[in-house]
């Protein structure tokens, strides 16, 4: 079993095999994400009752919280891939790490914007230099830094190594963001949803949240594979396997 998995991983490292794999599974992941988004949003907007204090504005939670979780998860994954790429020099891990950055930046941007939109009616302001908001903004800058560094160096492999190092150093931000509401006085609310243990949110409001979390995960994998495929093609543009593939498809 383990031997088979290692064999498959080695096979996945082959650019032609990865191209076929990414093209197929990216589409399936998007197809899995769409009905989940549809069902989750229908539940979030039409089925779940309004909050007794926040009214319907709390419905923003169903896009804000999954995006915030994804912003942290994607950064952690990017650093993980970068570490593997730096230690074992696996090209596929460089590609996957760098493909994580724009997706993570997109989720961080959604988190900041939807949080700001939610903050206006609830806190009376679009923005506050609150620890949670500020650290999340720094996370966005770190994603942009990784993307900028990767784009600034011509040699793709050297660029991925430099940007990967920045991602690894940036991991220190993740616990700071996570515990910012505990360590400092914050306008942002504390933890209300727990994976393990009882959430302080009513159980009738939880289901759409988990559906949206699952949908964003599928979306992320679909987008990751599509972006990694694009980068793989860019690196392999003059190679024989791609010529043969195009000749066959013509």
């Amino acid at each position: 079993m383990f031997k088979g998995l290692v064999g498959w991983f080695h096979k996945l490292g082959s650019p032609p095999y990865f191209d076929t794999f990414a093209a197929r599974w990216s589409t399936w992941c998007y197809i899995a994400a769409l009905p989940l988004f549809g069902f989750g949003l229908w539940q979030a907007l039409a089925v779940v009752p309004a909050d007794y204090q926040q009214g319907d504005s709390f419905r923003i939670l169903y896009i804000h919280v999954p995006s915030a979780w994804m912003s942290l998860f994607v950064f952690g994954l990017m650093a993980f891939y970068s570490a593997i790429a730096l230690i074992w020099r696996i090209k596929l891990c460089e590609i996957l790490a760098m493909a994580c950055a724009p997706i993570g930046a997109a989720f961080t941007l959604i988190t900041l914007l939807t949080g700001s939109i939610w903050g206006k009616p609830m806190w009376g302001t679009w923005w506050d230099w609150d620890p949670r908001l500020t650290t999340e903004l720094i996370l966005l800058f770190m994603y942009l830094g990784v993307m900028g560094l990767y784009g600034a160096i011509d040699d793709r492999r050297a660029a991925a190594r430099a940007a990967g190092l920045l991602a690894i150093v940036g991991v220190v931000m993740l616990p700071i963001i996570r515990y910012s509401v505990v360590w400092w006085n914050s306008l942002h609310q504390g933890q209300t949803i727990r994976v393990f243990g009882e959430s302080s949110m009513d159980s009738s409001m939880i289901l759409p949240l988990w559906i949206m979390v699952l949908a964003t995960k599928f979306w992320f994998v679909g987008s990751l594979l599509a972006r990694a495929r694009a980068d793989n093609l860019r690196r392999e543009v003059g190679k024989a396997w791609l010529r043969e593939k195009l000749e066959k498809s013509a």
Partner: protein
Amino acid sequence: MTYFKYVALAYAVFFVVLAWDFIVPRLQIRQQLREARARLTRASRGSAAAVDEELSR
């Protein structure tokens, strides 16, 4: 629905950013494949010209 415009704006932001995330890699893949096809065409034209020259000698 209370706070309708805030909820609508937040969901619009969500969908616009995800739409961007969906479209951009597709455009990049298309561009790379187009570039690879152009290289292939140039290479086949080049080899055809070389064969023509050889025959004319």
